[in-house]
């Protein structure tokens, strides 16, 4: 056993919960779609997020058993289940990000720890520390070009790819789960900056925010 302490951070009762963008949307607004809207932003808050560290082979086996999804086969890879609800993204040679529906993460971590047994690994719950922003629409890649240094051209950034990259003066994890949709995994404390930046950069495309 890994002899680490697992801690379920989710309360049992009905407790008010605030996404990292709760204040930002209130303060900076959440523009509605207009006729000319070419890009739409959406937060997917409260997802379960686990950082997995360890050897690829053991993690892959354990993940197949517990989540039913193996590690992406190559660097910068992103895999997801049929419904697109669970995904695993390569972050670095011994690091992956597992995102699952909120509430599943504690049980998944427990079962992964069991499955991994004596192997050397680490699992850290990071769900409170980052949120997922989606960008969708014909101008999404234009907004990204204003924001990230990485090349988002379809020849270079195909579906099923994900990178950690510079976003304005912060960093984001940028991934492309489908042709029309981009996901930005944003650190909580930088979420407001990212949100305001995207509103500003998206202004010329009449960016809309959906909740």
């Amino acid at each position, binding site marked *: 056993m890994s002899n680490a302490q697992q801690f379920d951070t989710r309360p049992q009762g009905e407790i008010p919960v605030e996404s990292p963008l709760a*204040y930002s949307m209130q303060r900076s607004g959440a523009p509605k779609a207009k006729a000319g809207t070419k890009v739409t932003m959406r937060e997917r808050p409260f997802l379960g997020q686990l950082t997995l560290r360890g050897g690829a082979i053991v993690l892959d086996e354990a993940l197949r058993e517990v989540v039913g999804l193996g590690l992406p086969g190559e660097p910068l890879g992103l895999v997801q289940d049929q419904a697109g609800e669970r995904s695993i993204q390569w972050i670095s040679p011994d690091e992956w990000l597992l995102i699952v529906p909120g509430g599943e993460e504690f049980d998944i971590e427990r079962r992964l720890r069991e499955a991994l047994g004596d192997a050397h690994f680490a699992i850290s719950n990071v769900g409170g520390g980052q949120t997922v922003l989606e960008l969708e629409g014909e101008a999404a890649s234009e907004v990204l070009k204003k924001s990230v240094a990485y090349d988002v051209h379809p020849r270079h950034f195909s579906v099923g790819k994900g990178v950690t990259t510079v976003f304005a003066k912060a960093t984001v994890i940028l991934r492309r789960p489908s042709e029309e949709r981009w996901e930005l995994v944003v650190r909580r404390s930088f979420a407001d900056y990212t949100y305001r930046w995207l509103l500003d950069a998206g202004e010329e495309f009449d960016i809309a925010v959906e909740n």
Partner: protein
Amino acid sequence: MTSNAQQPNRLSQGGRIDRSRKLSFTFNGTRYQGHPGDTLASALLANGVDIVNRSFKYSRPRGIVAAGAAEPNGIVQLGSTEAGQVPNVRATQQALYEGLTARSTNGWPNVQRDLMGLIGKLGGQFMPPGFYYKTFMAPASMWLTYEKYIRKAAGLGRSPNENDPDIYDHRHQHCDVLVVGAGPAGLSAALAAGRAGARVMLVDEQEEMGGSLLSSRENIDDAPATSWVEKTLEELSELEHVTLLPRTTANGYHDHNFVTLHERCTEHLSDLAPSANGRRQVRARLHRVRAGQVVLASGAHERPLVYGGNDVPGNMVASAISTYVRRYGVAPGKRLVLSTSNDHGYRAALDWLEAGREVAAIADARQNPDGELVEQARSKGIRIIAGSAVIEARGEKRVSAAKVAKIDIAGFKVAGPVEELACDTIASSGGFSPVVHLASHTGSRPTWNDDILGFVPSPVKGMTPAGGAHGVYALDKVLEDGVAAGSAAGEACGFSAASVSQPNVKNLREGAAVALYQVPHLKATLRGPKQFVDMQNDVSSAAIEVATREGFESIEHVKRYTALGFGTDQGKLGNINGMAIAARCLGRTIPEVGTTVFRPNYTPVSFGAIVGRHCGELFDPERYTAMHQWHVENGAEFEDVGQWKRPWYFPRKVNGKTETMHEAVSRECSAVREKVGILDASTLGKIDIQGPDAREFLGRVYTNKWAKLAPGRVRYGLMCKDDGMVFDDGTTSCLAENHFLMTTSTGGAATVMEWLEIWHQTEWPELDVYFNSVTDHWATMTVTGPEARKLMSELTDIDLDKDSFKFMDWREGNVAGVPARVFRISFTGELAYEINVQANYAMHVWKKLFAHGDKYGLTPYGTETMHVLRAEKGFIIAGQDTDGSVTPEDLGMHWAIGYDKPNSWIGKRALTRPDTKRTDRKQMVGLKPKDPSVVLEEGAQIVFDPKHAIPMPMKGHVTSSYYSPTLQSGFALAVVKGGHQMMGDTVYLPMADGQVHEAEIVSPIFLDPKGERQNV
């Protein structure tokens, strides 16, 4: 304001302007009219405006000389409103729009009657190069006075005094092939690379793409060249992976094919960006391009000849004449004399003649000019004077005549009688200089090519020059060269070349050119009329000769001594001529003299474009904690800690008056010492450490021991760099045998994380341990003060008994219904609980604490109070009380050093050096001012003998200093040489205002030295 609706120099037909529409504009207070398609320069010339400026140094009247980026004189201040002021705009590059307002940048009181000109004229001979250095530098104290007047007399415009209301943008771009310049070579290259399937960006600085073809006499495929341009652009715009960027200048070419582009999105429409569909529009954009390959098709600048009076308005480079006639439908004069060293210049005379104007003569420096263009001129009856040149232009505010004479180039002398030809316009051509500026930005020095009498780019990895920039000038060859460059660039990116058929272009037989730069005069250079080399910086051939006589032999020195090619000009027209003159004076060849280095940017870039949207509230990220909204709503003043916004203090309104910081901090301090306070400590860095070797790893990165820390316990740790100097501190908790949670300082979080990874990855990869940042996952609130336990007991199921949940223990349980880890650690010296919950639930917990805390006097406090409270306890802040030169022993923290740990640890070796064992090192002590009302200045120097003669030996300095409401006195932490052995001694702090403060050296622990308050 006077009005002048006439356009006396406008031709009745021809050009790419829209005569059906008129645009009015104002220049120096006079209103004029032009047409869509005009530049400000072409419109001014159409209106017969000869003088557009006064020169920088001598204040001579100057007119438009060129038609593009190389223009040295037509530099204007643009803007009809204060906020819309733009300095440094070249009239030749500025599209005309309705209401455009421009002024000359020089000339006082105005360009027509210029007082400075009088001084320039009288004083000209007394203003040699280096004049300002020599005349005004002494005494140094007077420079500020001189400068005020010199700046008034000379300058290149001014910045606006109001905020810019416009928005700007950046784009990160990536492409396979970046083609710079959309003339014949660039268009062909883009077509070749684009058809091959490459991602192509084609950028061009002008209003319209097409480059020289927009004013070309030649046909392509038996039709005017412009129809080929249109056809090519149409195909390019239909190619999916090709991006066309007009009005976009490639301004900087940096390492690894990183090119910066400046796109002017609305500056052809109005001063300030007009709104579109009720939305603000981006005014200008900076593109940051990473290109696989660069095709440099930036063309060539025509070199003017350097002859006497060549700056009198009416002197122009020959190709500019063609451009104004053919592209803008403007013939800026009546009677032309052309002075040329080559065939290309003849086009100007032919175009001039076809515009219905008179050509007085062509002075051709060659003995036997015989190319096809020469034949055409002859057949039209133009007088050609072989072996001659214009040696001097006559006239003051406009050319009135040209003095033409036979010249002996090799002997550098006039070889025949002087003939004076009446004319109002003199065109000159000394051949072309490839625009090598961008290639030079990479550090590559251009290579002299004797065949074309010009510098061409030297090889740059990933760059292919094409067309004019490559020294290829004949149109058919240029088109070929473009296709070859585009295909090669595409292939280098993995795209096999597509077929591009060579359009049908008549090959013109060309006579050889002759090398002519400075034209000899009857008088020696230093005595003859001024021959200008760099008109923007007012550098003459005489100045260069003087520079070489004064011993400046390196061209870089000549440049700096004379200002040749300085500033925004970057030597576009003058540099090669200047080098040729330096070469003549030094008796060397041009390649021996070499070139100066061209630097970015090629033409000026607006600050707005450089800044993009990184301004105002987006200038830098603001990091917020989960409780940020509460802090805002409760009136917190914020302090920037790294990028975090932390509450600094929470001023209250008392009797309608807002507390000062001092009042608020006193109240907050007392609340913590007497009742209970709460701090948002979420910003502290938190690193989750897992693995069987986690404990061993901690033992190696911290100075103290970790072998025996049991699960459920917390320990303070000190981290040193390998030089033994403290760089961060914090507590680390043992969560399980192989699992630890490390905290770092707010500002040090990322650095510590990197530090751990570096040591793990490079030095100890054999240790099985992983680090993950969980800073943002947890929100942390510190509840501290004598009433903390009572408050906590109302909200948690954790057993708070002082014997089961002791100081430096942590426990898990629920707080306000939310799972929490609670740590009994204290940065205030009081009973304290640090509650950690998942950040999304933090606001709920925070508010619940207040709902229950009111009756205990729960008071939110900020970083200032935190600083006071921790300093009273002598707790250091890494980075405030340490500065990278302080060891743990200097801090008196011997208890936190495990010299006897079984393995070595970072800093151990350095801490055993004699230097770190010295007893006279600066050591941490407390300072108690003798006058309790004094709060010493942080950074104040400490001396032992205030009567010592200056310079006094400085013995230490104050690192932290506050007023303590608990001690009712100012107090400070300081580092003092040998301070640990000086308890009770008096030291002195002389201040800048002459006061000398006295203070006693005391223990840095001012309050509760035994720690009884935190252990309750």
